[in-house]
């Protein structure tokens, strides 16, 4: 399966990454090569094989629903690019 510049532009939009025209050119060629290599996987029949998304036989790890101390808001906001009171500041979303 090939990836062209148009597809890559769309994927970059999904990933919220702005690409410069030169980057788009270079990355689409590199990703084409990488996907070509990955297509080797099609040589194996996996029809009856179950997928492994996690290697350990553990699931639904639960704990008691008990309140405990968490990070103070001020500390949690310390690294933010912008904050006001107890909130992160972001660009205007709704007109």
């Amino acid at each position, binding site marked *: 399966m090939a990836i062209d510049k148009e597809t890559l532009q769309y994927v970059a939009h999904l990933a919220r990454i702005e690409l410069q025209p030169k980057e788009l050119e270079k990355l689409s060629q*590199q990703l084409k090569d990488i996907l070509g290599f990955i297509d080797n996987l099609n040589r194996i029949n996996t029809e009856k094989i179950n997928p492994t*998304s996690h290697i350990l036989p553990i699931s639904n790890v639960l704990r008691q629903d008990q309140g405990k101390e968490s990070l103070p808001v001020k500390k949690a906001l310390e690294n933010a690019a912008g904050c006001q009171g107890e909130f992160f500041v972001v660009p205007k979303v709704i007109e």
Partner: protein
Amino acid sequence: MELYSLTAHELIDLIKDKKTDAKQVLESLRARISFVELKVGAYVRLGEVKKVTSQPEDSSSGGLFGIPVSIKDNICTAGNNTECCSKILQGFSPPYDATVISKLKESGATVFEAKTNMDEFAFGSSTENSCFAPTHNPWDLEAVPGGSSGGSAAAVAADEAIWALGSDTGGSIRQPAAFCGVVGLKPTYGRVSRYGLIAFASSLDQIGPLTKDVQDSAILLKAIAGYDPCDSTSVDINVPDYKKSLGNGIKGIKVGIPREYFIEGLDPEIKKIVDEAVDKLRGLGALIKEISLPHTTYAVPVYYIIATAEASSNLARFDGVQYGLRVEANKGSAQAMIEMYKKTRGEGFGQEAKRRILLGTFALSHGYYDAYYLKALKVRTLIKQDFDQVFAELDCIVTPTSPTSAFKIGEKIEDPLKMYLSDIYTISANLAGIPAISLPCGFTKKGLPVGLQILAKPFDEEMIFKVAHAYEQATDWHKQKPKL
């Protein structure tokens, strides 16, 4: 003998005998760093560290006696910048310690203030993808130290660190350990808490030690391992005293040699050195058997789907809001929020990070999910089954760590696919979740170190230490030092 050149266990013995103390060790290490760091470049932000080393006041409890540990730049240290060597995390000062850091402090270790260099977000096999500068291999300053934990490996090899922590998603501890001639261990998935490790691929990542010898590896793993309620993938089973598995001999241990690891692409010089190491194990009483892991060849393509898919999701959090870089949208833009995201991520991520996020996003996107992501998860099952089958009759598996020795800086950076193949022997252990170590087993004619990889069953790090220690004690590769 200078203090900085000793192993941690040697230093601990000296401290116990009151022949030195933690302060003198730290001073010796600092002097060594100021002497060689300009050549090697193992650390980042060395001159601008805000926080003074947290050397415990009373380091007599816990067993690590104030010995300093160097930390990779993707493991959170409270109040001390952790930037994953990425522009997008510039200035990030974590509000909390990773669990491994808390555990080190509880054990009385000194957490070294400067962090070690790495490929941005651990994406790479050469440490060239750092937003700072590449690290140089102490054995050949024009060569890469491997990656992504290249800073940690080079620091240990150059005696700029007594020991260090790295992280391993597809070989990022073991391959640099091999390239720099040190010991690097990737523990079983679930053995060490990932809480506070900035995530790359959550189903593959593990933190592990890079050390000067096997005994130090056993001591450092013991200090950081164990169940953590903050990481639901850490496993609640007993952590053995790994030191007890050292020195018992390996007579009758069953060792498998997978033929798929000794094919085209493996440097003949490396093959010869690894063959000799296998002969050495045989000489020590191990029972050697040729085996097959038939799906080995698919490990790299499977990895570059699964790891990038998970990374594309994990790295969505870097959006210019909660931490790190923000690049503002143009004034009056109708879609200012989305534009801010795109500009921030476009400027903040380096080339390899973009490549991987895009590849992973593509593999997960509508219309391609089944063909790529689901397919990769299924082949992962086959790779795991390969190991399950051979481990039914074996104690461990021995292979080369990397198909080549350290390559030159710049040699593979323009060819990502070639770079990816550098991890061909290490990736399977992450996909199967099993523990694996790399330890020095010789040198090429050009004087570059070669690594031997030993893999064992899940949670059987004891077997790895036992075999690795027996080999190490019968050789003196680990005692060689680069001339700097």
